[in-house]
């Protein structure tokens, strides 16, 4: 079986600015991976490349052995850091929208999660608070039975209580062959659910490791290692 995500010497520049300077990365199935790095390190650029929202300047990115496109979009569930909800649908209508376009979308699951988080399906999207919008987006993304979940800063804007529920949702809602990649700089909150970590800085990968390795060999938590590596 192909690796679910493979990057071969990916470079991405915006004009004279080099966002990614040569990323080599292979992510296997069934892992929860933390893509960790400070602001502006290239996390979002890498995730956007995997979603065909950007095209690499050079190098190759493969999802399940295929270049990003219509076929890979069917198996990738993506949570951007931006709020993409429109101002005219209700929660119910956007659930219908997702089940119309994604054959792997499970509406039942979505309604369950809405209930757990006390969100009314009839509520208009434009009337939701910022935190609730983020929750709705996460519910939409996690209600798909995808092979790869790409979550860009999934817990940035929600309160700590909802944060725990969301993390629990993430680990309990993907099947064991699926991979979840979570980009964040809030490491201590998500450390306990991660299998692997990728440290990214100035557009390059500076460390890939399993969390167990970091704990055993370096005797440190991921959070402590992160603070050491990225010390200002």
């Amino acid at each position, binding site marked *: 079986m192909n690796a679910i995500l493979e990057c071969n010497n990916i470079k991405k520049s*915006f*004009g004279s600015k080099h966002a990614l300077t040569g990323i080599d990365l292979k992510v296997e199935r069934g892992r929860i991976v933390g893509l960790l790095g400070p602001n502006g390190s290239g996390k979002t650029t890498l995730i*956007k490349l995997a*979603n*065909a*929202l*950007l*095209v690499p300047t050079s190098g190759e990115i493969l999802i399940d052995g295929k270049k990003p496109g*219509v*076929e890979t*979009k*069917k198996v*990738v569930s*993506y949570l*951007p850091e*931006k*709020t*993409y*909800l*429109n101002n*005219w649908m209700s929660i119910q209508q956007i659930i219908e*929208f997702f089940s*119309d*376009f*994604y054959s792997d979308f499970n509406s039942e699951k979505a309604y369950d999660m809405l209930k757990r988080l006390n969100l009314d399906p009839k509520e208009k999207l434009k009337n939701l608070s910022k935190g609730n919008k983020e929750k709705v987006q996460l519910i939409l993304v996690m209600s798909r039975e995808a092979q790869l979940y790409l979550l860009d800063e999934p817990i940035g804007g929600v309160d700590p209580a909802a944060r725990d529920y969301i993390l629990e949702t993430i680990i309990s809602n993907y099947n064991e062959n699926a991979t979840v990649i979570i980009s964040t700089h809030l490491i201590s909150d998500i450390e306990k659910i991660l299998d692997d970590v990728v440290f990214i800085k100035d557009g390059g990968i500076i460390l890939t490791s399993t969390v167990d390795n970091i704990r055993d060999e370096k005797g440190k938590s991921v959070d402590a290692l992160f603070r050491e590596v990225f010390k200002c």
Partner: protein
Amino acid sequence: MLGKLLKYEIKATSRVFLPLYLVLIVFAVVNSFMNFNPDDFSTSQFITLTLYIFILVGMFVASFIVMIQRFYTNLLSEEGYLMFTLPVESWKHIVSKLITSVMWIVLSCLIALLSILIIASQGINLSEFFESLRMIWDTAYSYFGASLYHFIVQIIVGFIVAMVSGILLIYVSIAIGHLSNNHKKLLSIGAFIGIYIVGQIISAILFIGNDGYGLTYRITQQSPFPFALVWEAIGISAIFAVIYFIITNIILNRRLNLE
């Protein structure tokens, strides 16, 4: 998938148009009850007629604004994160928005006609009206003969091609504007003006010709009606449309850079 995109595009835009159509028809009906008499024009008649005209103009302005706003907001602002991660080729996004825009413009024209008929229905005898329509038809038929149908098809196709070409010119301008990091709107307007001028120059060369014997000359030399040459002119407009479409699609595919 194109069908699904169309479904949601029509849903999103019908919220604007259906109420407008309803209001326009209501005002047309109200106007039709105000017996118009040019010698005795009351203030209330003046107000209802003015409001009606405002709504009529507003309807076409809305078609224009919605066309731009749907392309920009739904595809190139934050909503683009949702639309471009759907498992759909990007050209289908362009086509779904294009078809929806054309549909609303055509419907707006038909509703406008209907509303005018409603207002006029009070002052004129409808059977007389249709009788005179038939006379116009007969006159046209005696001029064109059987090719009157050809002429009508040509008018309709020409109208639609011109409309599609105009809409795609706006799309390609917005897409080019998107290439700028800081001045998207400014670059869009600049692109629109630039492409428009280039298009006019190319058209002028084709129609006038550098020796003065271009399409226009050839069209006026033929009688009763130069169908082939008018098709040629429509074809030129269609080629422009195709070029705008291809450039827009390339930008959405290769140069997308959502904020």
